[in-house]
């Protein structure tokens, strides 16, 4: 099982779907950002799994995964800063109460 590409890809698909459900269903903006991190991790797992099982990609996959991790760090920084800036104005972290545009 640990020597088949399919097992890792299915694990990554399940993790991505868990993250997608969290992004669609949670009301808290920070919980939505955490779900995005889970989805990014699922994509990274796919990249590393292909790198481990396809010989031509072995080193490239690790390089690409490191790039993805760095970009995810930048995304988390800016996303959380935006959430904190909105929280300072609206006094709530719940996204369905951000309805200024509707009033």
């Amino acid at each position: 099982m640990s020597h088949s590409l399919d097992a890792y890809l299915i694990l990554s698909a399940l993790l991505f779907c868990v993250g997608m459900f969290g992004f669609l269903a949670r009301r808290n903006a920070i919980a939505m950002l955490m779900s995005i991190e889970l989805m990014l991790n699922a994509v990274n797992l796919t990249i590393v799994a292909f790198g481990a099982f396809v010989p031509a990609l072995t080193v490239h996959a690790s390089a690409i995964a490191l790039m993805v991790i760095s970009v995810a760090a930048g995304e988390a920084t800016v996303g959380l800063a935006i959430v904190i800036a909105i929280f300072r104005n609206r006094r709530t972290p719940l996204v369905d109460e951000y309805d200024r545009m509707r009033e």
Partner: protein
Amino acid sequence: MSNALAGATVPALGWSWGDLLFLVLSGTMLAAALTVVVNRDIIRSGLAMIVAFAALAGIYVLLGAPLVAAAQVLIYIGAISVLVLFAIMLTQTKVGPIRLVFHHQAWAGAAAAVVLAAILIGVITGTDWPDAVAHQAHTATDALARLLFSDYVLPLEVVSVLLLAAVVGGVFLAKRDEPQGEER
């Protein structure tokens, strides 16, 4: 997986050690990810996220990518999780955990996630990967370093500029608007 353990099997179960590790790590990771998504208390969600990231680092080691596992521990567990926990504490309201965690339309999101999982699993099991081999390769760290500083040197520099921009943008967005000094 080290070569000494590759042929050995777990005494009671008859599985190989690699399979056992894979099952334990993936079960831990999926359970922690579900906890992140469904837990009512968002602090516990943040702590479960650390567990999910740690289990994923173990899976990277199992896949023979130790440098990615180290980066996962350093960046995700060390930096991003701490950032998320600080943001949670900065945005906690005094009333404690809210009663309604999910949107009213959460069932539609759940249905979409289940359908997407079914489609992805069907596609993955139905595809015959032509270039994949049965034995996984180990990523040599020195080859990775050479590649990062030869073929990937432009993306590496672009990522460093992106991180600098993210730091500046994060400070600019999160800082308080000070009064400008002039009094009206």
